[in-house]
């Protein structure tokens, strides 16, 4: 299996634990990942608020780079993923608009025909690799670890390509495959409001607090995300959030690939548990039941 890879700015910055663990998990599963050469930022919501046509041009350029390689494009960041899919959809729906963007790409010697498929790692791991193959690789099952799989807004909205947007299961299935116990809660795809924690903290922290409180109420020991922005938002602002929600206790927040890397028996360089402000290893040590010798 081979894929093109669009990291986006976050996975090269505060989300580097997600990048490292994602690449390590792919390597362990013999998946070849090729980072796009000279990729540019997806534009996120901020760029789109200023100039939508140029925002389309940004993402179309990344899609064209991927198309030149003829492989599916994996984008682990939910914001990048959502915007790449949105661009692909827009270029199909509005040919006139697409033509202007294509003219821009043409100027840089790039071509876009809409052939490239944008994929999220959850999709690749569940549907291309398959849960059985993941199970086979597990050396340290997360037996006893109760976790809240959090999908957030953009992985499945507005265009859901691989899971149910109302009640998604892909991350829960993956976490079950590595021995964890996903808790059920109704806010799996409710917005965490990451785009507001920097600008309007009173708003962002309220939204995130509602989520964390609900996850804890349902018994979660750890929060698992598929987006570096959700991960950052739910973890780093817990202290100010607790001032609004005193009932919340510190809870680690990791990317789902980190727990898979751990279950595969990979080391700290791959799991990156030390790249967190709320200790991760401690919760795993406390909650995960050791496997009896010879049980696996």
């Amino acid at each position, binding site marked *: 299996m081979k894929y093109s890879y669009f990291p986006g700015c976050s996975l090269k*910055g505060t989300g580097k634990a997600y990048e490292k663990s994602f690449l390590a998990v792919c390597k362990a599963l013999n998946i070849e990942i090729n980072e796009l050469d000279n990729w540019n930022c997806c534009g996120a919501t901020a760029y789109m*608020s200023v100039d939508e046509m140029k925002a389309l041009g940004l993402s179309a350029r990344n899609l064209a780079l991927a198309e030149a390689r003829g492989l599916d494009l994996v984008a682990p960041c939910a914001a990048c993923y959502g915007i790449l899919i949105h661009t692909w959809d827009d270029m199909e729906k509005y040919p006139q608009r697409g033509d202007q963007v294509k003219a*821009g790409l043409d100027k840089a010697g790039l071509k876009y025909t809409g052939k490239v498929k944008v994929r999220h790692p959850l999709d690749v791991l569940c549907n291309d690799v398959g849960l059985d193959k993941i199970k086979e690789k597990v050396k340290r099952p997360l037996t006893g670890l109760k976790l809240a799989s959090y999908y957030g807004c953009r992985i499945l909205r507005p265009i859901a390509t691989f899971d149910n947007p109302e009640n998604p299961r892909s991350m829960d299935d993956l976490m079950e495959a590595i021995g964890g116990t996903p808790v059920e809660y109704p806010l799996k795809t409710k917005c965490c409001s990451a785009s507001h924690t920097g600008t309007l903290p009173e708003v962002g922290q309220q939204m995130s607090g509602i989520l964390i409180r609900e996850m804890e109420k349902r018994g979660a020991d750890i929060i698992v995300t598929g987006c570096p922005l959700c991960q950052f938002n739910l973890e780093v602002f817990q202290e100010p959030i607790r001032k609004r929600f005193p009932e919340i206790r510190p809870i680690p927040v990791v990317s789902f690939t980190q727990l898979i890397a751990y279950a595969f028996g990979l080391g700290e360089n791959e799991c990156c548990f030390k790249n967190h402000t709320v200790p991760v290893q401690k919760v795993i040590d406390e909650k995960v039941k050791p496997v009896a010798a010879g049980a696996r």
Partner: protein
Amino acid sequence: MYGIKRHIRYDSDRDNNFSDEIMAVPGCENLDHCIQCGTCSGTCPLSIYMDLTPRKVINLTRAGFKDDVLSCHTIWLCSSCYACVCQCPREIGITDIMYALKQRAMREGKYPKGMPTPVLARVFYNTVSNRGRISEIRLVISFLGRAHWQRLIGMWKIGLNLMSSKRFSLKAERMDRPGELQSVLSVINSPNGGVRK
């Protein structure tokens, strides 16, 4: 005048071309399908903070009350989570309409004073246009430095936490060859958005 304002809108406050202009933006064409059911406002996790609910924004836009919608907080509170779009029984691209209104507010300089989101959008836009990539922490510092430097100081603890978890980086990310992106963008122009000349 003692903060007294007229709360009833007159017909003469309307801009008769406005709704057509917004509906011409791709994704916004179903604006006039709205039946005012309010499902968007009920679905929106952020409507509790909005001065106009999404339902009202849709109706005011459709009716041409341009100044009301371009100067409201609502469009800047929309985090584009698309929850409303998925629930709308009339298939209205509410999030796209919010984007179209944001772009228009930016272009006409009409966003509410003191609202930090448009300031961040501008900093983000300029950084990406020049360098092709952003560095998250540099972006936050540069934005807070402009809009709320007091808050920047209040965030020292978060900065320390990020340092101790080795996630604090001031490295200025950029594309290897930003010129390749700039030549793509140089021929793309938006009728609705874009930077004010």
